[in-house]
């Protein structure tokens, strides 16, 4: 078992330990979970250490034949166990291990049904990291779907009063999205082949594997390969190669069949788009998120905002844009439109909120809109910016939801108008909130600025680079920056400034104490990272941008 597999499956060992511990040892559950996530974090640092920054393609590959189905006259379907890292996922993997560690500390006070809680939590870590690392579409989909299971229970069992509604809404919404991905996957599975394995079936040999691949692809174009020998694949990298598509199949590049004015490739792209946008989430499929956040407990909100949403935008890049670059160009305008609408629409909604957590949930949608816009523009700068923004938003939104948790833990009330002048009562809490709000509204010096400015610049320049979208999208998106200043500053003014006043007078004012030690040790590192990556963005960009530049090139030259 190599390091990436270890990274994914280490938590299973921890689950085993938790399961065999008797109930009276329940204090150990969180310790075991913390150790497990810390080990994962260290492993991810080792991955960075082994990562070659100058090589933009997949590295540290782990690939085995996993399932091979003989489909008789249709040939074979070969599914691989395939993990690897490159600039698109490495930073997200490290972010995940870090945030999961933070999440355990934030769950320190979970008492009720702790065994189940921490087991599900560990399952979640395995599936999120697996999802980021998987390079076979089938494996990716497996992890992508498997996330729903622990998340459903984590929201539905440890959440707020309307948790069941929220959990089922979350589950059905994302499941519906996944069905679209599943359909797309089935379509892809019968359209392209894995050349090396096909060569094996045909008993071809060649000097080098490159020769062999060229030979097979050549024969495929000439339709000389018997159907029985075709080895179909779901390997994302093979699916991205135009010469691996079987002539005459629905998804081959030259298929001219048109359904409702759309080619089959366009339909598959749109299916994937809907599936991933639900997870991002983007307007108009976003309404599960505010409900899920409001009902989820603090650590689960942190994981949801910081990591789960990223699997959507990551999937868009890794799957939809990598496999269907031609359609990415065709539908760039649509993706960008949804991104810009999300930015502005969600910001308007955030302005109307009285529930602090709901306000931050909408701001999350707004900031993820920038990621969608960056992906849509598909220039080297904008994709780098999008990945940077994913990491940055991962850090900032984690801090934001932890900060909401601070007041909620003390009073079980999150309404902005229930508090006034918290600054005089909780100075450190206020300071951290002010810093995080400013980081989130994109003030230079914080990581939020770098991501947004790269995305806007990339989107602005897209019309001269690749002509996918017009500059007006970037112009529209900048208004989101203005609105975010409005809702954050207004919240600061209403909740934190002014004379101290709370709804339940003396009862609450006793409870509202400044940050505890446990809250500080998780918030300080996050704040530190916002500033660190804001001042030295190359720490992330060095990992991210070579691969993003490659992807942007690939999309233009499709």
């Amino acid at each position, binding site marked *: 078992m190599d390091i990436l597999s270890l990274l994914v499956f280490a938590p299973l060992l921890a689950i085993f330990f938790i399961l065999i511990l008797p109930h009276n040892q329940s204090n150990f559950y969180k310790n075991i979970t913390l150790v497990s996530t810390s080990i994962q974090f260290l492993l991810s640092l080792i991955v960075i250490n082994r990562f070659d920054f100058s090589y933009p393609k997949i590295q540290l590959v782990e690939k085995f034949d996993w399932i091979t189905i003989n489909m008789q006259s249709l040939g074979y379907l070969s599914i691989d166990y395939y993990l690897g890292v490159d600039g698109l996922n490495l930073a997200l993997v490290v972010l995940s291990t870090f945030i999961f560690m933070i999440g355990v500390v934030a769950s320190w006070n979970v008492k009720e049904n702790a065994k189940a809680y921490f087991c599900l939590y560990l399952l979640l870590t395995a599936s999120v990291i697996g999802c980021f690392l998987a390079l076979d579409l089938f494996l990716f989909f497996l992890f992508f779907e498997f996330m729903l299971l622990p998340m459903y229970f984590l929201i539905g069992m440890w959440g707020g009063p309307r948790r069941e509604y929220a959990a089922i809404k979350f589950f059905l919404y994302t499941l519906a999205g996944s069905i679209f991905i599943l359909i797309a996957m089935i379509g892809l599975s019968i359209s392209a082949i894995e050349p090396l394995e096909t060569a094996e079936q045909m008993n071809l040999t060649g000097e080098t594997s490159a020769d062999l691949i060229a030979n097979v692809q050549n024969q495929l174009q000439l339709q000389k390969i018997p159907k029985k020998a075709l080895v179909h694949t779901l390997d994302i990298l093979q699916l991205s190669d135009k010469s691996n598509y079987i002539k005459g199949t629905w998804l081959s590049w030259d298929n001219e069949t048109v359904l409702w004015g759309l080619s089959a490739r366009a339909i598959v792209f749109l299916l994937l788009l809907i599936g991933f946008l639900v997870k991002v989430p983007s307007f108009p499929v976003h309404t599960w998120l505010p409900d899920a956040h409001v009902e989820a407990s603090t650590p689960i909100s942190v994981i949801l905002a910081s990591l789960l949403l990223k699997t959507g935008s990551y999937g868009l890049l890794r799957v939809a844009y990598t496999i269907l670059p031609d359609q990415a160009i065709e539908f760039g305008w649509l993706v960008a439109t949804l991104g810009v609408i999300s930015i502005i629409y969600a910001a308007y*909604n955030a302005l109307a909120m009285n529930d602090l957590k709901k306000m931050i949930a909408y701001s999350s949608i707004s900031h993820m809109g920038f990621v969608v816009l960056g992906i849509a523009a598909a220039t080297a700068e904008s994709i780098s910016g999008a990945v940077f923004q994913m990491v940055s938003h991962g850090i900032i939104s984690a801090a934001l939801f932890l900060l909401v948790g601070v007041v909620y833990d003390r009073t079980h009330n999150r309404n902005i108008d229930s508090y006034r002048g918290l600054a005089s009562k909780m100075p450190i809490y206020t300071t951290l909130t002010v810093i995080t709000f400013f980081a989130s509204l994109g*003030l230079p010096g914080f990581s939020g600025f770098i991501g947004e400015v*790269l995305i806007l*610049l990339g989107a602005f320049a897209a019309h001269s680079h690749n002509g996918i979208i017009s500059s007006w999208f*970037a112009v529209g998106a*900048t208004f989101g920056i203005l609105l975010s200043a409005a809702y954050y500053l*207004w919240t600061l*003014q209403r909740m934190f400034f002014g004379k101290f006043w709370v709804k339940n007078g003396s009862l609450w004012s006793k409870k509202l104490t400044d940050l505890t030690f446990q809250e500080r040790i998780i918030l300080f590192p996050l704040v530190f990272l916002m500033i660190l990556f804001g001042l030295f963005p190359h720490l992330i960009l060095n990992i991210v941008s070579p691969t993003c530049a490659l992807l942007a090139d690939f999309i233009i030259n499709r």
Partner: protein
Amino acid sequence: MADFAWLIPLLPFIGFLINGLLGKSLPKILVAVIGTGAMVASFLLATLIFFSIPQGETIHLNIHLFDFIQAGTIYIPFDFLIDPLSILMILIITGIGSLIHLYSAGYMKEDEGFYKFFAYLNLFVFFMLLLVLGSNYIIMFIGWEGVGLCSYLLIGFWFKNQDYNNAAKKAFIMNRIGDLGFLMGVFFIFGTFGTFTFDEVFSKASLVTEFNQPIFITICLLLFVGATGKSAQIPLFTWLPDAMAGPTPVSALIHAATMVTAGIYMIARSNILFVLAPTALTVIAIVGVATALFAATIGLAQNDIKKVLAYSTVSQLGYMFLALGVGAFSSALFHVMTHAFFKALLFLGAGSVIHAMHHEQDIRRMGGLAKKLPITHLTFLIGTLAIAGLPGLSGFFSKDEILAKAFETNIIYWVLGVIGAILTAFYMFRVYFLTFHGSFRGTHDQAHHLHESPLTMTLPLIVLAVLSIVGGYFNLAPIFGGNAGLEHFLSPVFAAGQAKIHHTNHLSHSTEYLIMAVSVVAVILSIGLAYFTYISKKSVPVEDGDEINGLHKLVYNKYYVDELYDKVFVQPIMYLSTSIYKFVDIVVIDGLVNSIGKGIYALSGILRQLQSGSIGIYVLMMVLGLISILAFNLIP
């Protein structure tokens, strides 16, 4: 020497870190020493750099610190540019900054947030220095937004008062509107030149020969939108008077001497781009002169000493934009410098008065303070004379230079400028007479406690008073026998731009004397009128509740601009946000989602009937089935 320029912003930043992180447990005196010491050290370093430039030579040095952003085709180094323009700005910022830090040590002595105040002030200076030292538009933008943040924190420094918080929020958001314009302008610059670095952009731009290309007009107007936000010009000026909610040293440093001149610095820095877009320059000149006049009229009717000074700042900034608009870039910076001296002086003087009056700011409650506050009185008088433009004082030279340049371009600018100068003289002397002369109109308690401020506060006043007198001689025009030192010093920065401007009608000396005489006579008459009104006739502005007539009421209420903005922008946005949430999100989208769920549930309710297990229904179905089969068979 200039290689150490990176220390200049670093020192205040270290001051910020020490005071911000540890200040709570440090004694106030140490906090003040650290904060002020960092500033003085920066100032000394800046002076050393200035004097290390050999006589008759210029300086143009790029200091590379580290690579900031590198992605795709974007490369943004974190570099500083040391040239005459940035040296002038860092001298002003660190010099005035040192004095104001010292002053704050006295002014804020009683405040519980003392350490926080010094930390914010140091942080502000750090960002301001970043703004003027950055060698590309992105570093400039970091400083640009950073000073906005500090301005926000300092305006709302006394956060328990919600009016102050409103002012802070308004300042930040209005600035952000401008910032978006700036950012878009920067995007267009990148789109056109493929770089953000000043040197590369400007050298590419200087090769352009065609004037008024649409792209240049677009860039310049967008950058100017940024400038109107930061430098409080029409239409984004209303935040500055409200910003007076902050402690007075803040008003002096940020809202008079330094931050608000950032827009002028930015345009002067990009002068070559603006020269290529004469239309944009015309817009700037018109907005500048309009603001100068508009704000001056509002200043006539305000009763809060700091509000009057705030409107006068808006008005003076308008003069600077007028100078930029007529292509007199060095005159604009000359006025930036002299204005920094006398306006900082006036604000600090006002602060000294407010300090003595126990936080009373209404000039209707003052009067006759000259005897009790002799140093404050004398220095305030010098500041007032300087801003009014009395010959020999700094304001005279810089304002007159602008008016002369305006006269060359278009006589209407000059006429409006002179009217503005007349109004300025009147409202400034109105404040001066009402505050320091006549009889005391405050409470008995206040009269009892009137006292001159401590040395930490009066010393900066004296230094600034001296500078307000001699400041003009740094750039004495040839007409007065000077050698225009500042203009000469700055000329390398503006050389490329000036080469493209065609000066047609140079003024003869006699014309220049004549227009100077006109404005001096007008100003003196205006001072006389103020004397007649407030000393001879002893009139005092009416109380808030009293009836005032139409025009006075309009001016007193600042032309209702705030109310207009509230009705046209703020309220519709709030209304829109609530209705979007309540209608689109809840009713339309979630309604659809929930009705899909309910629809499936209802449908399954119907289908479930088929599997109910009730024999009666099965029999009924069977009968119905048989009947229909028979019926179908009977019909041919």
